[in-house]
C-alpha cells in the first residue's frame, strides 16, 4: 500500500507541476494539491477495488484514478484565488481566442457580430452561461463544473450542443460550412 501511494504521489506531483504554472499555482500549494490527490486517489482505489475488471493492468487503472483526482482538485482550487465573475462578458477576448489578427478586423468584424448574435438568440440561458464562462472568461471546464455543482460530462455536453447550434446559425448566414466534422 505504501508503495502504491508512493507511485500515486509521484504521478500527482508530476501532473501538478505540469499543470500548475498555467493555472498560476506554485510552491507549497502545488505540493499540497499533489499530496491530497494521491491520498484521495488511494482511498478511492481501495473503495472501487471491486470495480476493477482486469481490462488493463491494475497500475494503469490506478494511475487513471490519481490523474482524475488531480484534475478535480485543480478545478476546485481555481476558485480560491480567482475573482472571476461568471456573468461578466469580455467579448474583446474573442478575437485573440480565435486567432483573429487586429490587422484583419475588417474581415472578421461581421463574423464576430454574427457569432455574438447567435450566442444571444440561439443558445438557451444555461448554454449561454456556459459559453460566456468557458469562452469569454476563460474559466477551465473542470472549475466551471465545480462552481455550477455539475460535472465535466454535463458541461461538455452543454457546450457540444451550443457549438453545434452556433455553427448551424453561422452556416445559415453564409459565414461557415454547414457540416459537422468526421475526422479523417
Amino acid at each position, binding site marked *: 500500500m505504501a508503495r502504491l501511494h508512493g507511485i500515486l504521489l509521484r504521478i500527482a506531483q508530476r501532473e501538478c507541476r505540469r499543470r500548475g504554472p498555467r493555472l498560476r499555482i506554485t510552491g507549497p500549494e502545488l505540493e499540497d494539491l499533489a499530496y491530497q490527490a494521491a491520498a484521495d486517489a488511494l482511498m478511492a482505489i481501495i473503495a472501487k477495488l471491486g470495480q476493477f475488471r482486469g481490462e488493463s493492468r491494475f497500475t494503469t487503472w490506478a*494511475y487513471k484514478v490519481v490523474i*482524475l483526482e488531480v*484534475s478535480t482538485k485543480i478545478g476546485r482550487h481555481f476558485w480560491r484565488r480567482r475573482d472571476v465573475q461568471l456573468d461578466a462578458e469580455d467579448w474583446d477576448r474573442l478575437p485573440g481566442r480565435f486567432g483573429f489578427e487586429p490587422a484583419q478586423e475588417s474581415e472578421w468584424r461581421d463574423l464576430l457580430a454574427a457569432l455574438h448574435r447567435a450566442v444571444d438568440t440561439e443558445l438557451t440561458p444555461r448554454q449561454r452561461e456556459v459559453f460566456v464562462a468557458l469562452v469569454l472568461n476563460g474559466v477551465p471546464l473542470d472549475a466551471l463544473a465545480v462552481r455550477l455543482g455539475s460535472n465535466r460530462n454535463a458541461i461538455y455536453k452543454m457546450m*457540444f450542443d451550443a*457549438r453545434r447550434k452556433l455553427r448551424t446559425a*453561422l452556416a445559415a448566414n453564409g459565414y*461557415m460550412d454547414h457540416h459537422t*466534422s*468526421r*475526422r479523417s
Partner: protein
Amino acid sequence: MNGWPELDRFLRTDPRDVGCAEAMEVLHVYVELVASGAPAEQQYPGIAAHLHACGPCGEDFEALLAAVRDTTD
C-alpha cells in the same frame, strides 16, 4: 469556411464523440492500446473523437499515457 481555422475547429462537432463520462470510463484501456501501438482510434473511434475535442479529457489522456510510458520504460 476555412479562413478562421481556430473558430472552425472550435465549432466542429463530431457525431461519434462519446462524451467525457464514457471516455473516462475506458481511458485506461484506451491508453494501454495506444502505448502498445495498437490501432486504438479504429477500435474506439468515439473515444478518439472525444479526446481530440475535449481539452480536459485530452489532457488526462496525455497524462495517463505519459505515466504508463514512464513506468514501462
